[in-house]
């Protein structure tokens, strides 16, 4: 059987960054990839999607955006090209078209089974992504068969949907973006929203993610957060990487003509029932946004840049109609399609090491799993808030490979 020191599972930005640091330390390894480099970005994204982070923030170890539009947002094609170039530049030992079907612990390391053979190794870095499968709530099972149901994995653009009304469930980044696009396609859109994270695209004339970076919010360490579980499960903020840099919050969608309803609670007798608690989820999001903006303003004063940026601003409270619908008949023909923008989850069905919790997430301490020599990278808030984003991987991969290397050295 083939032997190597380290197997990296996944050749996205995380696996390739791990490979970069493994190479720098002279550690023999392979990167196994089920499809091609940056596979999820190639095959599991809708056509109009752009990164939420501005181009200048797209950074991998030794690899930066070099184009003419630092404040713009990469299309999926550009993301794939960016990661492809990184893979080529680092000469990562990637084996494409190789799907891991099982990972088992052995006496001296791990046994990796793939659809193209088996490997033995001392250490493993799981970099298979956080969004392998759409998370769809159980109530989807009770939706009448006459209504078409889609997840973001099935969605490429509005043209494939039947004409007529669309219910978009979920108001994180995916939900608000698809609601806007479907509305612009001429389909009446109803948006069902539970808890969400509201953010303006720009604040004091700077990208809101510039503030997150500059004010140090993204530097917060995972072991210093008051509620790490919540931070790791939080939905993406209501942002879109559109060239006009406009905000895509609920008020923007209301102005377009999207109808707002509460969180989808259940489907009963062909009707979907919505929570009457909409006003509070909206109030929570407004309050949290204001707290975040206060953090930015305080940092601006303390850091002495207050005079260099535009004055502080506050945004209109989210408008909720006097009456929102609490029920919607799915048999009447008004809604032809439901889009479940209800989040994603990782897939660890191939992982035969007991490190997955009851909710299907890895139990890990900053990427270090409770199984010697086993590591994870590329998960939300893995070691810092920044970990959720492409440019968060450099510090995480360095730290995790340091730990891995120390583990190997101690075992020699």
């Amino acid at each position, binding site marked *: 059987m083939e032997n190597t020191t380290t197997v990296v599972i996944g050749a996205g930005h995380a696996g390739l960054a791990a490979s970069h640091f493994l190479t720098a330390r002279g550690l023999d390894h392979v990167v196994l990839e089920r499809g091609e480099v940056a596979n999820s970005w190639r095959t599991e994204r809708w056509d109009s999607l752009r990164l939420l982070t501005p181009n200048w923030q797209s950074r991998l170890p030794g690899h930066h955006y070099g184009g003419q539009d630092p404040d713009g947002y990469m299309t999926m094609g550009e993301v794939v090209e960016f990661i492809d170039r990184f893979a080529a530049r680092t000469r990562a030992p990637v084996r494409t078209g190789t799907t891991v079907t099982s990972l088992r612990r052995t006496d001296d390391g791990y046994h990796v089974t793939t659809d193209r053979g088996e490997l033995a190794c001392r250490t493993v870095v799981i970099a298979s992504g956080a969004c392998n499968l759409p998370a769809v709530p159980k109530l989807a099972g009770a939706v009448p068969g006459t209504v078409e149901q889609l997840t973001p994995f099935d969605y490429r653009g509005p043209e494939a949907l039947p004409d007529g009304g669309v219910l978009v469930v979920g108001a994180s980044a995916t939900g608000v973006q698809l609601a806007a696009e479907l509305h612009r396609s001429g389909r009446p859109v109803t948006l069902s929203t539970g808890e969400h994270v509201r953010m303006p695209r720009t604040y004091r004339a700077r990208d809101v993610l510039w503030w997150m970076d500059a004010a140090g919010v993204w530097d917060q360490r995972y072991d210093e957060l008051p509620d790490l579980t919540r931070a790791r499960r939080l939905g993406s903020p209501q942002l879109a990487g559109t060239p006009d840099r406009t905000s895509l919050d609920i008020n923007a969608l209301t102005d377009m003509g999207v109808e707002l309803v*509460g*969180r989808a*609670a*259940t489907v*009963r007798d062909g009707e979907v*029932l919505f*929570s*009457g*608690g909409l006003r*509070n989820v909206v*109030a*929570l999001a407004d*309050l949290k946004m*204001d*707290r975040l903006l206060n953090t930015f303003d305080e940092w601006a004063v303390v850091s002495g840049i207050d005079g260099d940026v535009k004055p502080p601003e506050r945004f209109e409270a989210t408008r909720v109609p006097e*009456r929102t619908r609490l029920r919607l008949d799915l048999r009447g023909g008004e809604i032809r399609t439901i889009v479940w923008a209800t989040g994603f989850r990782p897939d660890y069905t191939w992982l035969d090491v007991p490190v997955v919790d009851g909710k299907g997430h890895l139990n890990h301490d900053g990427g270090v799993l409770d199984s010697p020599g086993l590591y994870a990278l590329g998960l939300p808030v893995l070691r810092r808030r920044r970990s959720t984003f492409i440019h968060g991987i450099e510090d995480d991969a360095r730290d995790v490979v340091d730990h891995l290397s120390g583990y190997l050295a101690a075992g020699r």
Partner: protein
Amino acid sequence: MTTIDSIDNGVNVQALLDAREALKASPEAAQFTWRSTTRWENGVHTTSTVKDFAGLGAEQTHKAEATFTADHPEVFAAEDHGITPIEYLLVGLGSCLTAGVASVAQNRGIQLRSVEATIEGAHDIRGILGADSDVRNGYNGIKVTFAIDADASKEDIEALVAQSQKRSAVFDALTNPTDVTVEVS
């Protein structure tokens, strides 16, 4: 200047935080059953009693049995021995949200001086009378207004009220559908 240690809203937040941690490991102990028994008196007058409940893996008992009288007002051609059942929902919501405000305030180090919630439920009684089948039986809407005097900014007080709703059992029970089974023994 008030410190977190010196503020006291009378809520043992530490016990609640400890319970939260303990119940993460043993979800079966977190399964509670609340009970109430209603006896018909006469007309639309009833008496309900609440004493026992189950939780933490055992039968539990309140310190004392509580009794609640319900009836309907004279404008409903009833004798008005007590409040109407739908008013009990307002009682439940107001007490739950107010308790939540006190707990969250304690946890956030905010000293409360007074809290008063005023709750109004808009009810079109043509529903229960069967006068118009398009009108629902229950509330068309409920409005809660809090007057809170505390050592905190307006934003912090709004955040208290928002967090209280987020963690309220009765708010959830009223705003989301609940499966209800009614049988005859």
